[in-house]
């Protein structure tokens, strides 16, 4: 959790965030890259009244920028990129830009929603607790197979070249989840493994990812169950 001072007399942005949420991490990485100060408000329970007052949908992350309230990490990131153009999150080249959108979508639509802890817990309830990890690994793996192919001709030091872009903001937290929470075998993903190593060498990324490095899946499921109760 970060606290910060107001910037140049403007209202400081507020980010409602959950410490375990990879969606929140994407936004925090972007805010850091753009050098934007913000108050990080940690939401600890589903239906937190403070969050609902600001964002009736109750989704995190939610960004409050003066009178504008935005939830959904993709929407927040594109909003930030348009309003605060320093450190652009997208390359100029249309083809490379499209690759960034594709990576973001593959993670945000094909992977993250299917491996998020509340859904995995639900699978545990309606199918069996033994199915939780296999379910999560199956969907992560499926998405990673696509990403490994997609980035073959585009990756440089990072996912789509030698600069950190939108794609990297999505990949870094997802890779962390896959490797540390779900213990996915990364042997068939040399490119993604290389990217994960590159992210681990960036101080900003390390700071963001350090929090749950040592928690295993069962602990996390237990925590989420408590939060949702």
């Amino acid at each position, binding site marked *: 959790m970060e606290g910060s001072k107001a910037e140049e007399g403007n209202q400081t942005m507020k980010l409602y965030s959950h410490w375990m949420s990879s969606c929140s991490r994407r936004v925090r990485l972007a805010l850091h890259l753009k050098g934007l100060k913000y108050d990080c408000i940690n939401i600890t329970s589903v239906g937190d009244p403070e969050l609902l007052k600001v964002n009736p949908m109750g989704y995190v992350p939610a960004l409050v920028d003066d009178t504008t309230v935005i939830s*959904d990490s*993709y*929407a927040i990131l594109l909003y930030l990129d348009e309003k605060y153009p320093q450190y652009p999150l997208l390359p100029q080249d249309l083809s490379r830009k499209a690759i960034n959108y594709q990576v973001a979508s593959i993670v945000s639509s094909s992977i993250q929603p299917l491996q998020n802890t509340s859904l995995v817990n639900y699978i545990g309830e309606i199918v069996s607790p033994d199915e939780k990890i296999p379910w999560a690994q199956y969907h992560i793996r499926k998405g990673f197979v696509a990403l490994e192919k997609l980035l073959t001709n585009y990756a440089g030091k990072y996912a789509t070249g030698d600069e950190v872009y939108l794609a990297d903001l999505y990949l870094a937290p997802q890779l962390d989840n896959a490797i540390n929470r779900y213990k996915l075998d990364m042997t068939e993903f040399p490119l993604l493994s290389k990217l994960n190593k590159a992210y681990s060498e960036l101080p900003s990324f390390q700071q963001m990812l350090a929090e749950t490095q040592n928690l295993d899946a069962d602990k996390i499921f237990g925590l989420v169950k408590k939060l949702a109760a």
Partner: protein
Amino acid sequence: MTTSSGQEESKKLQLYSYYRSSCSFRVRIALNLKGLDYEYKAVNLLKGEQHSPEFVKVNPIGYVPALVDGDILVSDSFAIVMYLEEKYPQHPLLPRDLEKRAINYQAANIVSASIQPLQNLDVLKYIEEKVGPDAKIPWVQKHIGKGFAALEKLLQNHAGKYATGDDVFLADVFLAPQIHGSIHRFNLDMKPFPLLSRLHEAYMQLPAFQDALPENQPDFPAT
């Protein structure tokens, strides 16, 4: 497979699409709104044609929809629509106002991240096999219901004739197929969602939407 008239073969856009795929449906609407001719290339997802050697040669990741524009290949409906928006700016799919743009992005992503992935073929097959054939519909309705409740809240203060005002934008491109599919494929009770119901009626009047309907596609099964 259908070819449309009015454009040289070499310049024609190609869309790899499945008639019933709501992601493909989104792109078809966007292309129609922008008045873009395209060649329809059917990929039968039910038969697994996305894994066929022919399609994988076109799109190594095997995703549908996929757009081919000369040398450029884009897959994923959101990426395709954002690409079209930049390359073919006619009939903008995003409003000028930054806050309204953000509402559009939010609505599109509630559909594409919170709803649609939970109803894709792979997931439904799993639920059917592991829980039971009767579990499929309740599963889908639960997730659609959650997303629709969020959308009703999100759009409350922004909707006009369409989702975010009186013009058709990105939010509508994503909402229209989702609402249509929820009603026709999954028999969702729309009574709790009066705004989305109203939007659905408005979409049904739009030629760009009608032409994109599953039943109007070349690969819609003949009865």
